[in-house]
């Protein structure tokens, strides 16, 4: 077959295959399985933006033990992480690096805005070196107010985020 017919022959099938895959994963048990596995393997990126990291560390401690939800403190690669917790104030200098970190992460990635400063600039809303609204940098899934929020409150935000993952489309 000539080059062009090969192109559109493949094009038809490839187009078709992706529709078939989307139809399969979009329904019933397969979707539940994929969302269930994403829900139970939320690895947070180890980037501490500001003072809320003290409460994030307290949540990682033995008292609340978030590994029950698969939240393991991964020290290292961005490729394996799929949850970024914006812990506190994002200064303009940190915003550049945070954007780079967000773009390096693998696709199903979620963001929790922890603390007032991540939600709305909180205590330092009128400072000259602060990015007040973090949702302009990247889409935020769950906001948790508090300065800093209790570790249990952060865990309740993680539980809310998992609820959202459980119900979302696989290829959103």
């Amino acid at each position, binding site marked *: 077959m000539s080059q062009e017919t090969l192109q559109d022959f493949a094009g038809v099938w490839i187009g078709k295959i992706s529709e078939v895959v989307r139809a399969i994963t979009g329904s019933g048990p397969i979707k539940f399985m994929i969302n269930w596995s994403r829900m139970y393997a939320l690895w947070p990126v180890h980037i501490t933006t500001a003072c809320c990291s003290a409460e994030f560390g307290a949540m990682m401690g033995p008292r609340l033990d978030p590994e029950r939800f698969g939240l393991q403190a991964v020290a290292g690669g961005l490729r394996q992480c799929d949850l970024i917790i914006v812990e506190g104030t994002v*200064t*303009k*200098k940190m915003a550049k690096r945070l954007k780079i970190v967000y773009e390096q992460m693998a696709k199903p990635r979620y963001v929790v805005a922890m603390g007032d400063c991540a939600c709305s600039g909180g205590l330092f*809303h*009128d*400072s*000259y*070196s602060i990015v*007040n609204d973090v949702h302009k940098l990247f889409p935020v899934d769950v906001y948790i107010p508090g300065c800093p929020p209790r570790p249990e409150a952060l865990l309740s935000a993680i539980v809310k985020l998992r609820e959202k993952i459980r119900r979302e489309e696989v290829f959103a």
Partner: protein
Amino acid sequence: MATQSPTREEDLVNKLKARFPDAIKDSKIEGKHRITIHFDKDKLLEIARYMRDELGFDHVKGVAGVDDPTHKKIEVLYFTGSFSRPEIEDLIVVLQAELPRDNPTIASAVSVWESTHFHERETFEMFGVKFEGHPDLRKLLTLDNWEGPPPMLKDIKFPEMGQR
């Protein structure tokens, strides 16, 4: 205070005045632990060397800039203290120099007190005070390509400042 033997603060001030009669403008003893000494900004290095070697003030706790737009001047304060001599270790001697507001420059004290290295970099960035002779005078805290004016000056109001 007509005490018989002058307190250690007074003899400290008298020693400084005797050594630098013209450079020391005036001095104020506030309470038991604080002395403020206004001095002429060109004599900083001699005064610093004298304070470190003879009087024993071997480190600087911080360098503060204070902006005073009404009198058109910026004050630079050196908070000096002493670790090596126990009899004056609770004293904080504040050396205060007035600089013109439009082009504030002063000699850098890093050659005498190494501890002022990062403090001077911060005051340079926040108030625009140029410290000549500083080995590595770069910006420290704000965004890398921040082309804005020194942020701590009083007349510089940022749009978000104090908004509801």
